[in-house]
């Protein structure tokens, strides 16, 4: 098990280097000039050139890359070329709403989708099963902004149970914070519940047709025991994989939902930084994302060992 963890950790190193290089090249080779954006509407070319020199954008690409690598390896992501705030601080400001929204969404999604998926598989072919399949197709297909606006109209504008927009930090009280995230979390849960329910149902159907389930039944095991003891544990690997990747996607930012509900999360930070060509922020955010993704993948891999003894061996 220990060597498995060490191997997985070592494999992260080349991935990180590839990510760093790709992020740098994508930004610097792509179109767009932060100096022109910073200079504003009626700036002269001389003014733009001055800004370019100040940001060291006039240096050779290799030199810029080496400076960038040196800074990143010392965990110095630099400062936003606009506000001058440290990139680390800007990212930290956005982590709380993003992480809370992701947790809230996944909690709702898991609580709804796994029991539904298991139940639908257990009752495969019945009206309940078909209803679940149709509901999950709808949940997966309807754009999140449609669901978001519909929820806002009903629960915020008509019933006034929740705020229309904005995020209240945890420092202002847990309940208020959770209240401000309820509509966005429910919006996203439509999508992720649908996905998880379908995966759970499909996996459970597969497991229920396995020989060891038939053996358990032949030995006289009750339905509940067959389902919980023999079947449920064996759907763990694919379901946890989907939960992990979904969670990573949520942490990476859900731009449309963040925009509809005005949640100042990582997604909006990323999009704003890309549109403004704020290179240090984009680099910082993408590197953070890549580490989060690598970390989650590692946890998912490690969790396989819990569900499958063959991995532990």
């Amino acid at each position, binding site marked *: 098990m220990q060597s498995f963890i060490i191997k997985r950790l070592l494999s992260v190193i080349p991935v990180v280097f590839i990510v760093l290089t790709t992020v740098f090249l994508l930004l610097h080779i792509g*179109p*767009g*000039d932060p*100096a*022109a*954006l*910073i*200079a*504003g*509407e*009626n*700036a*002269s*070319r001389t003014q*733009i050139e*001055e*800004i370019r020199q*100040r940001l060291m954008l006039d240096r050779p690409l290799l030199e810029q890359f080496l400076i960038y690598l040196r800074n990143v390896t010392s965990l110095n992501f630099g*400062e*936003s070329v*606009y*506000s*001058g*705030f440290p990139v680390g601080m*800007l990212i930290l*400001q956005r982590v709380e709403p993003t992480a809370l929204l992701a947790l809230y969404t996944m909690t709702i999604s898991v609580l709804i989708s796994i029991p539904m998926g298991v139940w639908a598989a257990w009752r495969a072919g019945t009206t309940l099963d078909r209803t679940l399949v149709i509901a999950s197709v709808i949940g997966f297909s309807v754009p999140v902004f449609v669901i978001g*606006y519909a929820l*806002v*109209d009903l629960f*915020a*504008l008509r*019933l*006034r*149970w929740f*705020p*229309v*927009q*904005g*995020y*209240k*930090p945890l*420092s*202002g*009280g847990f*309940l*208020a914070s959770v*209240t*401000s995230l309820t509509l966005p979390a429910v919006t996203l849960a439509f999508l992720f519940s649908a996905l998880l329910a379908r995966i759970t149902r499909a996996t459970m159907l597969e497991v229920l047709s396995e020989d060891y389930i038939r053996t358990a039944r032949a030995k006289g095991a009750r339905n509940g025991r067959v389902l919980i003891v023999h079947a449920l544990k064996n759907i763990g690997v694919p379901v946890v994989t989907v939960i992990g990747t979904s969670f990573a996607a949520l942490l990476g930012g859900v731009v449309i939902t963040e*925009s*509809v*509900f*005005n949640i*100042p999360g990582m997604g*909006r*930070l990323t999009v*704003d930084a890309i*549109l*403004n*060509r*704020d290179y240090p922020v984009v680099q910082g955010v993408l590197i953070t994302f890549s580490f989060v993704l690598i970390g989650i993948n590692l946890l998912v891999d490690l969790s396989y060992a819990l569900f499958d003894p063959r991995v532990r061996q």
Partner: protein
Amino acid sequence: MYTYIPIECTRRGVAAAIARRALSWGGRNVELNTIAKSISVAALLSCAGLGVAQADSVLVLRDVGDIQQMDPLASTNYPMRDMSYLLWDTLFAMDENFEAQPQMVGAYSVSDDGMTYEFTLRDGLLFHDGAPVTTVDVIASIERWMTKDSLGLQIAQRLVSMEAIDDSSWRIVLNEPFGQLLNGLGRMTAYPLFIMPERLAKTPIGEKLPDLIGSGPFKLAEWRPGVVFAVEKFQEYVPRDEPPSNLAGGKVAKVDRIERATIPDDMSAVNALLSGEIDLLKGIPYDALALLDTEDNLEYGARPLLGQSIQIVLNHTQPPFDNIKVRQAVQLALSQQDFMATLLGDRDDLYEICAAIFMCGGPFETDVNSERYMNENFEASKALLEEAGYDGTPITYLHPVDQQFQRDMGTVLIDKLRSGGFVVDARQIDLATMFSRRSNNGPVSEGGWNMFLTAFGGDAMMDPLTNPYVSGACEEAFVGWPCDEELQANWREFLLADTNDARMAAAVKIQDRSNEIVTFVPMGQYFGVTAWKTSVSGQIDSPVSVYWNIEKAE
């Protein structure tokens, strides 16, 4: 810290309403009732916890755009400029007739030869850190401004000396009479002359200001880019006695705190206003106005001073627009009515078909030489293209599609140009790419361009000295680089004119020449709509978003 206040908690007794609602939701079901009771208690506790925040009057507003940087000389960004007016005061300020009036200046005199000016600051002016505003700060602020602003540069060219007489008085000596000096010191936009402490004013433009200590009626409370920019009333600020008029007169802070919330999605902003989470909304989408008509506690109106105008910009340095007749054919192919109708539908009360390149309603309005772009004529456009020998070279049009305004206007533009005989190569890009690409005056094959569309506020367009298109200054001109000696001479005549009549005469010549060589094509003037709660009053009509003098009834 920024504190979000749910609307339920800002209204007396509404927390109790939530509780009642939650209890009714539970009905007779025991389990649901238990949950409902929890919600009701939580709602009451939640609101009780915010009681402190309610003690102060807080104006929460949403305006278009975000504040990504905060140095008023580093960018022409309008949101930053608007907030800068709260943080920093100005020596002079434009009144509703666009005439410079003393603001921080208490008294001033001009010598008979018009070359020596003496100014004295008003009594009691303080920076937000409690330090008095002195001439050292004023001179440092003027010197910084003169390196960036176009009118400041003109003043610098004529400056013999600028020296302190004492802590509150200073003298400016010029080498020739220059009637634009006071207008410069009271510059409304791009770039206003804000008075900062000397240590801030010594910061090179482009470097981050070490802090944001200001001289204005509000001081910085909180700034989180992409989230909120909040200011608090500066208690020691001494406003002028005169009533407010545009940016001039008394800047009286009538609320304790102003929070400018960044809400990127227009409909979310409208919903926030409808639910009462914000008090004032600028840049409301026109198709959402109908939603406000049924709300008794909301009002809305168009910003009456000048508004904004749309412009088509042509690159004079590259074919085919290096040919004046091809440029004039563009004028013939376009119609302001189509652009305005696309933008605003049937709300013709919110736009104006305007012949003036210095804005209708502005002090230099004229319709001279506007016939070509006021009368769409595709046949005449085609005939002129033939006369010009246009060989069908594609027009490389930079078409940003990440903004609805640009996407819609561009679609109309492309269709009109094709109808007028042009071959158009529309490059669908994002706005940031357009900004960077348009500074390239090389051939299209080397990343250049032929045409783009943009919009400027009336505050910039209304005056030949701030209108970016009319200098005719070749390499030094705004992108498009029109190069014309006659236009340069007209512009200089305006610069040196010492009476309003002389300025008007020069402005007419500038418009005549500018339209002749087609420095740009004006595509209509429109007025942004602001909506607000009926409890909010005291808004000042201005091309700038002004937030002093605004009151909020409890």
